[in-house]
């Protein structure tokens, strides 16, 4: 396996671990950004350039900032007095470990039969545009409606209650 893959995977996994383990919530959000960046680099290594740049633009440029704003608006940067892990943390950890072991076992079992690397597909943005307007036009329109609904919904949900409906 390539050295680049090891480095990027290590970065992603460490970012993910830091995002769920750190005490300070804003540090968790910044570690999440590092994990997003690592995943974008993995996408680029898999020759999915459009998906990689879209990941950076949407996740790091918008979702990470959204998370940070929410943390600041809800005073998440103050550490709670009871600790940061809930009372039932052991059960959660056990479930996650069980899920990982099942997935890992499935992958390792199937490893000899997984397909090998084919020649790199030369996907141009032109082709993506044609596909989005041709074959995937219905999902595109539905996602547009979904995003509009989410926008309006988020604004209404987070609006001040005094001005909201009684």
């Amino acid at each position, binding site marked *: *396996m390539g050295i680049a*893959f090891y480095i990027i995977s290590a970065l*992603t996994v460490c970012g*993910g*671990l830091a*995002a*769920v383990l750190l005490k300070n*919530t804003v540090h*968790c959000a910044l570690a*999440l950004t590092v*994990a*997003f960046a690592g*995943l974008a680099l*993995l*996408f680029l290594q*898999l020759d*999915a350039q*459009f*998906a990689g740049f879209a990941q950076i633009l*949407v996740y790091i440029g*918008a*979702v990470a900032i*959204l998370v940070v*704003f929410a*943390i600041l608006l*809800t*005073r998440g940067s103050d550490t709670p007095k*009871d*600790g940061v*892990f*809930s009372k039932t943390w052991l059960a959660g*950890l056990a*479930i*996650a470990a069980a*899920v*990982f072991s099942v*997935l*890992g076992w499935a*992958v390792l079992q*199937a*490893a000899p039969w*997984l*397909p*090998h*690397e*084919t020649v790199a*597909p030369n*996907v141009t943005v032109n082709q*993506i545009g044609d*596909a989005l307007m041709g074959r995937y036009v219905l999902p595109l329109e539905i*996602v547009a409606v*979904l*995003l509009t*609904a*989410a*926008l309006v919904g*988020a*604004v209404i*949900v*987070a609006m001040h209650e005094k001005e909201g409906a009684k």
Partner: protein
Amino acid sequence: MIATPLAGYLLVAALVFAIGLAGALTRRNAILVLIGIELMLNAANLNLIAFWRYGPHPEAMTGMMFAIFSIAVAAAEAAVGLGLVISIYRHAKTTDLDQINRMKG
């Protein structure tokens, strides 16, 4: 170029998914649960792209399209989820999930 086998990408995706799941299940703060959910969605995206790349017809772009739509939907879901967290904070004055455990507000 040294080829990385598909199993490598799938294992990384499984690991990130498990980390996200652990975070969503063990942390108190509601926002950290959402962070865990975002990590899980990202791991699933990585799976999609890896299978697209190593699959029989990468020129059909199905996997990448799926991942792009998944990114869009995840962004919408993060926005609504965080709006809900802010609204709950305004009502319950806390984001500690261990204390928001009653239906009566």
